[in-house]
């Protein structure tokens, strides 16, 4: 692989990274929002490396006398075009129902550093699915009694029971590879088409046994209204 090709690959890769971070919010399908400045910086560095290489190449033969011995880059560098292909051809969407389907023991959401705030009665409390699950499984389950909550997520059918479905959202700590699905079973409502984003307003249903074993059974929500919404800009919690 000669210097020209190396530079082209670097420009392509840097350009792809800048494209998903600056002109669109696609990067939110892959990493946390706080990652943006680092991605932009890395994209610029890679792009610059490529541009410098091109300029050196264009300036011509003066640099070439001793260059032939270290302008070899390994063939493995071609693989750097793979993520570029993936970004442009597959345009990978945010993880959705496919990744939330397995009926495996649910992950416990990362615990909040401070105890949850008291909920205000009489209004609809907006919260993340993580907070809802955290409350329902934790000490503060009583705080949910009788409270209307609004949760945002996508619809996932249950693999075990035919008429059961979940409102799910993926929680990521750093990037989509560490994503875990958080799920709440929605009662008294028909399931929207799989993978549709919805807002569900409802109240927590206390399990018959009193308290849930964290991680084993998803908390339940008795729905009063379901509204279809477009996918949020930030698809993960």
């Amino acid at each position, binding site marked *: *692989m*000669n210097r*020209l*090709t*190396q530079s*082209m690959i*670097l420009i*392509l*890769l840097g350009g792809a*990274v800048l494209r998903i971070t600056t002109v669109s919010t696609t990067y939110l*399908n*892959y990493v946390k929002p706080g*990652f943006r400045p*680092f*991605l932009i910086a*890395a*994209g610029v*560095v*890679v792009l610059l*490396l490529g541009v*410098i290489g091109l300029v050196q190449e264009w300036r011509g033969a003066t640099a070439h006398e*001793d260059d032939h*011995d*270290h302008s*070899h880059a*390994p*063939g*493995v*560098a*071609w*693989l*750097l*075009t*793979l*993520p570029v*292909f993936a970004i*442009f*051809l*597959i345009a*990978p*969407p*945010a*993880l*959705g129902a*496919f990744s939330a389907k*397995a009926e*495996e*023991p649910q992950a*416990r*959401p*990362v*615990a909040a550093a401070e105890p949850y705030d008291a909920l205000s009665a009489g209004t609809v409390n907006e919260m993340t699915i993580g907070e809802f699950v955290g409350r329902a499984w934790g000490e503060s389950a009583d705080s949910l009694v009788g409270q209307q909550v609004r949760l945002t997520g996508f619809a996932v059918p249950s693999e075990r029971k035919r008429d059961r479905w979940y409102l799910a959202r993926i929680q990521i*700590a*750093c*990037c989509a*590879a*560490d994503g*875990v699905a958080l799920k709440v079973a929605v009662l008294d409502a028909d399931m929207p088409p799989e993978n549709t984003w919805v807002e569900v307003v409802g109240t927590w249903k206390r399990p018959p046994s009193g308290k849930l074993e*964290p*991680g084993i059974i998803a908390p339940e929500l008795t729905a009063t209204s379901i509204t279809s919404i477009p996918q949020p800009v930030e698809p993960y919690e």
Partner: protein
Amino acid sequence: MSERVGVEVSEEVPPPEWGRRQPLGAVSPWIFVVVVGLLLLGRLVFAPYLTAPALQAWATIFVAICVQALPFLAFGVLLSAAITAFVPASFWTRALPKRPFLAVPVAGAAGAVLPGCECASVPVASGLMSRGVTPAAALAFLLASPAINPVVIVATVVAFPGEPMMAVARFGASLVVAVVAGWVWLRFGRADWLRIPSRPVGHGPKWRSFVEAMRHDFLHAGGFLVVGGATAATMNVVVPRAWLESVAGIPVLSVLVLALLAVILSICSEADAFVAASLTAFSPTAKLAFLVVGPMVDLKLIALQTGTFGRRFAARFIPLTFVLAVVVSMAAGEVLL
């Protein structure tokens, strides 16, 4: 010098050099035109068909691993190139103890300073070696820095609220593994197992050799990172986690299973504590093994190390690290958790 690197690498990588029959300079740009053409054509022709959920989930995770590792890789390559170009070799002989036996723990502890994940540490360690640092010391640094730097320790404390001993055990066990692995390499390692990457040191201005080293390292390590990312994404989609969790209750086996999971998932060391915390069914010792093994051995690291230091090195050093990490985690879990 670097001719040697190029040739050796191409022995291992499937496509040795494209189009040997013709002079490379004439062919590669055209391959490149084909690549760009495929990109444009593919958007119109193939993109509508690339919508299977499994393929999309795979692509999301693959791109996520690559995208997330990119800043760390760029940072690591930048630092490594700066070490090669601007720090005189004599600095390292002064900064580190003369006796290799002592240099190993010092280098391991120095890992606490570099706030990067494992993708950054491989190029930095190879930069250190090419500047004359004892390989064993550079290896101790390589293992320690992604596991014990402040960012990772803070993340661990946050992910395990009320269990500060988890962060303490992680720090201690990781440092012990790094130093012991360095000593073992010092005592039993043979020089010809390890391919110390030689750098293109230009005779021109310093910034020029800086850019040259950066470009070379980035293309090289980046290619192997892609290999690791693709493997990890495949494992992530194909292996159901439910299989692994079915063994959560069995003492020794559960530790081994989480250690293997850490290898397979290849999560960045800054995020792995959150994943470990979510594996509620497992014992603290098993989670500790996950945290100690992950930053030292995982699929993308295996690919990066093989690419940077050679297959003969990787085939010995990676099993050594894995076994040490599991054993030390079990001991630390027994004592501290």
